[in-house]
């Protein structure tokens, strides 16, 4: 068994990690100096403070911390330098060769004591009952400087009676304890890039203030917590710490929300989480996080968690709580019965992009070995399947090409169909940092997303295209590159297939692909397109980041290929600062795809018809594997309505809420005879289920997640599974009852099997992950430490393959009846279907889904801000409150889908990407009008949902009586 690394927590800001005071500098030049008689060699540009810390001497400090640029305000870090007058601050003074520094002397001690005395005279002396007690840098410094008395007394003018700001649900601001060190202000600027904080007032009056002297919740603050993390005192403090006290140990694990995959230290008291602190050594996030990962973990212990297995024979029956044994036996018997009656291919499974790699692997293994078919799919189907297809066809591997850190080397950043500040916040912070250093920005999005204009960041080009015209824009950009001679001819000649390139070149050069010709279709002026193309092709290192606004279209796969074409045509691939980077939605989208969760692929993206691969797995698993692809999620629904697909094992996925055209999905599920749902909550899909198996949260199991950079990181168990089993154990139990033994004592053994059978994973193991922290695949004999940047010398497929991407208008056309286009997205505080975030205080930022509509469209329809409106498409109708907003262009409306009762997916249609059946969420033709009551669907939903909750309530009651 593997031990979780545990360490005792000390130091408020860094959760047990050493604080070097100022950031690391990299330089080819080294400098040697003497500190306290000791020789120290560091990179040129390093501060004296950091050099001392690297040499093992910790100079007292308050305003400096190594995640922020030094500020030099507290004067506690003074040192003496031989041959220099005065006492320079070591945090702001860079090292020089031959310098002789003294960090301690009687004079320095007196000066420091004087500084501390001033601070303490205006600081409450309630250390024993303070939330930061035992973890406070002010306390530490009082100790280090030997402060024994405060001559000024405590009754002079002070801030001890200032009011606390409790508005943020997760942290408190207590100005009485503030020492005005400015760390929080710098963290908000440098680490987060939001610029929500300032120091207002001067001299004695000065205090930290969010926005215009507003409470935190009314300001621009996005609650990332970076300021809380760097605050050296209890001024900014997590409410959970105030409530529970300081942690006694911590465990490194990975965030279970988005595809950034931030590394965290879960700070614990026994089995209880006290707080989550982003891990400074985490390669994806380097010590930063967003509101979801840092604060919104309360759902894991929410009272709505279902902890007992339940069964029922019809979905109109009340649920019955049963033992694990009975539930699993029932599920197994049902699956056998259905296969006997309807044939081997009549059942299947769905793998979650939220569960671990090991769990994903086991579910597809169960389907292929026990069910004996390939009817396995993952919810990545509905988000990034076009990425897998498009990048495999062009570059040869179904994954992004870079590390997140690579953006530090980008000169031009193109963001297409993605809204990183909301959906991938920690990566957005990195990106904003690079942009504020001068990198250029091209945004291609129908919406005026925050990145287009925010403090210290402005897009050089915003191509505000009409939804559904991505491929047209990409062809127009390519046209400019080809016709204006901006091609990277040498790169193309060396690295790409010539015939395909020539064909592509001829195609994009056609007059119909020119920006002028496309203007009518895309709604973007040719001049803007030309400017953006020139900038992308000639502005230096250019990187493309894209999201679901590219994939979730009828031409999603085509657009992904179009992006890869652009990168190849300009030679922007295979080194730092460039590349093609999908921003993945859920935490383990990349991983679930890698694990062979698609019906046509075995682990490692190898087609089931490939007999060599099939034989490899057949030998390892001892069964015969079908050579034909299985059903994809939308095909499963169609087959269910046809009566040929009757049983489903669905792990950790809420297909009823997240898939398009809910009414179609619900009808399909209602037609099936046995649905087994494994989840932590009674989700929307579970309302159609016959067997409910309680799932486990990421805090309750061991495993790995793979983020959008192909980075495999450990998930570590910090508490026992609340319902008794981790999800991987449940799959093993189910397989066994269906007559197949899976022998794994620990998830590490599952990963060992994956590594053995998958060439890109050959070198991955828990031992290596513990040693390196994280690994980017491919990791094998050729790349033992993993592969940060892909396609360096040659493409994975050999030569890069240009593919012709012809624009084809979607069938979802605006008409007189449906004159507006609805597009969907997500916001920062909520996550996907919201099952987790809705059960946290994050609802304070977003308590319902709203329909955003342009003032012009609103006025024409008599829609007022905050009023109810109905949204009608050919698939259905729902009612939401309106938000009149200029972020939308006229003709386009927008909503999120975080709440089930909003029914955003009642209106989305089952139109889908031609190659992968990824739904066209981003384009639905609708009409909007003001109304006074919920839609028919919502009334029906409310009734159904109420009945289902009563049926659940009965299960719980019967238990408590029994």
């Amino acid at each position: 068994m593997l031990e979780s690394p545990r360490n005792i927590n000390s130091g408020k800001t860094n959760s047990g990690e050493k604080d070097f005071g100022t950031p690391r500098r990299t330089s080819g030049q080294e400098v040697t100096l003497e500190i306290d008689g000791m020789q120290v060699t560091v990179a040129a540009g390093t501060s004296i403070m950091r050099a001392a810390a690297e040499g093992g001497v910790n100079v007292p400090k308050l305003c400096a911390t190594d995640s922020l640029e030094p500020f030099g305000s507290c004067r506690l870090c003074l040192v003496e330098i031989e041959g220099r007058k005065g006492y320079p601050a070591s945090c702001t003074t860079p090292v020089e060769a031959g310098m002789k520094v003294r960090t301690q002397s009687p004079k320095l001690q007196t000066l420091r004591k004087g500084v501390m005395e001033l601070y303490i005279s205006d600081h409450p002396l309630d250390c024993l009952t303070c939330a930061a007690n035992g973890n406070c840098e002010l306390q530490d410094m009082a100790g280090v400087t030997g402060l024994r008395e405060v001559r000024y007394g405590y009754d002079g003018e002070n801030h001890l009676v200032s009011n606390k700001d409790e508005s943020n649900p997760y942290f408190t601001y207590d100005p009485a304890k503030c020492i005005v060190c400015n760390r929080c202000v710098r963290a908000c600027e440098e680490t987060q890039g939001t610029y929500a904080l300032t120091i207002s007032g001067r001299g004695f009056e000065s205090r930290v203030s969010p926005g215009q002297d507003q409470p935190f919740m009314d300001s621009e603050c996005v609650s990332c917590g970076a300021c809380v993390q760097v605050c050296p005192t209890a001024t900014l403090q997590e409410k959970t710490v105030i409530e529970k006290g300081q942690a006694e140990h911590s465990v490194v694990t990975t965030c279970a929300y988005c595809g950034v995959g931030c590394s965290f230290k879960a700070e614990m008291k026994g089995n209880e989480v006290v707080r989550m602190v982003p891990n400074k050594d985490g390669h994806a996030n380097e010590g930063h996080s967003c509101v979801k990962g840092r604060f919104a973990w309360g759902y894991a212990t929410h009272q709505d968690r279902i902890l007992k297995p339940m069964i029922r024979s019809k979905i109109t029956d009340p649920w019955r709580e049963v033992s694990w044994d009975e539930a699993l036996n029932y599920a197994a018997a049902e699956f056998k019965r259905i296969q006997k009656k309807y044939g081997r291919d009549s059942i299947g499974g769905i793998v979650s992009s939220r569960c671990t790699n090991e769990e994903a692997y086991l579910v597809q293994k169960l389907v292929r070995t026990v069910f004996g078919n390939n009817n396995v799919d993952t919810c990545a189907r509905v988000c990034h399947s076009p990425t897998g297809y498009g990048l495999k066809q062009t570059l040869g591997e179904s994954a992004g090409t870079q590390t997140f850190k690579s953006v530090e080397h980008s000169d031009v950043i193109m963001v297409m169909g993605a809204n990183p500040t909301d959906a991938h916040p920690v990566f957005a912070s990195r990106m904003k940092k690079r942009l504020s250093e001068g990198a250029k920005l091209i945004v291609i999005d129908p919406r005026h997303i925050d990145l287009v204009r925010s403090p210290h960041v402005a897009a050089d080009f915003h191509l505000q295209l009409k939804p559904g015209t991505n491929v047209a824009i990409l062809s127009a950009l390519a046209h400019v590159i080809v016709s204006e001679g901006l091609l990277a001819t040498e790169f193309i000649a060396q690295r790409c297939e010539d015939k395909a390139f020539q064909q592509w070149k001829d195609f994009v050069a056609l007059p119909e692909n020119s920006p002028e010709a496309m203007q009518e279709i895309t709604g973007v002026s040719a001049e803007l397109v030309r400017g953006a193309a020139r900038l992308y092709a000639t502005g230096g290192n250019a990187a493309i980041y894209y999201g679901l606004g590219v994939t979730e279209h009828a031409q999603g796969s085509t657009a992904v290929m179009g992006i890869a074409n652009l990168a190849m045509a300009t030679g922007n691939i295979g080194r730092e600062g460039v590349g093609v980077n999908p921003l993945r939605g859920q935490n383990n989208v990349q991983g679930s795809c890698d694990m062979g969760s698609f019906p046509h692929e075995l682990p490692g993206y190898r087609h089931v018809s490939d007999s060599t691969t099939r034989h490899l797995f057949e030998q390892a698993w001892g069964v015969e594997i079908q050579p034909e692809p299985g059903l994809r999620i939308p095909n499963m629904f169609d087959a269910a309505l046809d009566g040929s697909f009757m049983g489903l094992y669905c792990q950790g996925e809420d297909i009823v809420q997240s898939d398009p055209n809910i009414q179609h999905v619900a009808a399909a599920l209602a037609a099936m005879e046995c649905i087994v749902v494994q989840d932590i909550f009674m989700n929307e899909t579970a309302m159609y289920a016959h067997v409910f198996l309680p799932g486990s949260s990421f805090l309750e199991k061991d495993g790995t997640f793979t983020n959008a950079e192909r980075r495999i990181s450990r998930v570590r168990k910090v508490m026992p599974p609340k319902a008794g089993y981790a999800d991987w154990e449940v799959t093993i139990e189910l397989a066994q009852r269906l007559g197949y033994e899976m022998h794994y004592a620990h998830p590490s053994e599952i990963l060992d099997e994956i590594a053995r059978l998958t060439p890109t994973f050959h070198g991955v193991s828990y031992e290596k992950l513990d040693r390196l922290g994280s690994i980017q695949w491919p990791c094998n004999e050729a790349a033992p430490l993993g592969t940060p940047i892909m396609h360096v010398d040659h493409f994975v497929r050999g030569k890069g393959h240009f593919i012709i991407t012809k624009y084809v208008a979607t069938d979802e056309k605006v008409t007189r009846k449906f004159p507006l286009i609805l597009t969907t997205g997500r916001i920062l505080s909520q996550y996907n279907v919201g099952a987790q975030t809705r059960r946290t205080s994050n609802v304070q930022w977003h308590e319902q889904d709203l329909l955003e509509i342009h003032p012009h469209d609103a006025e024409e329809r008599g829609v007022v801000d905050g009023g109810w409106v109905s949204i009608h498409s050919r698939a259905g109708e729902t009612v939401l409150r309106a938000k009149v907003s200029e972020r939308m262009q006229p003709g386009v409306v927008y909503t999120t889908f975080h709440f089930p009762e909003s029914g955003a997916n009642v209106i989305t249609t089952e139109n889908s990407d031609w190659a992968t059946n990824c739904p066209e969420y981003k384009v639905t033709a609708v009409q909007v009008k003001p109304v006074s009551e919920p839609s028919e669907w919502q009334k029906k939903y409310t009734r159904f949902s109420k009945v289902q909750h009563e049926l659940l309530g009965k299960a719980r009651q019967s238990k408590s009586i029994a």
Partner: protein
Amino acid sequence: MDMQNLVHMANKIGDFFEAMPDREEALLGIAGHLHNFWEPRMRSQLLDYVDAENGKDLKPIVVTAIRTYRSKLVSQH
């Protein structure tokens, strides 16, 4: 399964490959895509439809691809 939907999906595949200048490549592309990504029951339904309805509502290039590579598209089991 809903035949209209299958026809619609097949036509979308046709739209993509039709843009290729090399017609042989396009036909092979269409057939290959159906073979690699469509579950056998979807394929056989489409094949039956082409036979019974003479490919009504299907793009000509899709019908040609299906007829040319029919044997490849018949389920292996």
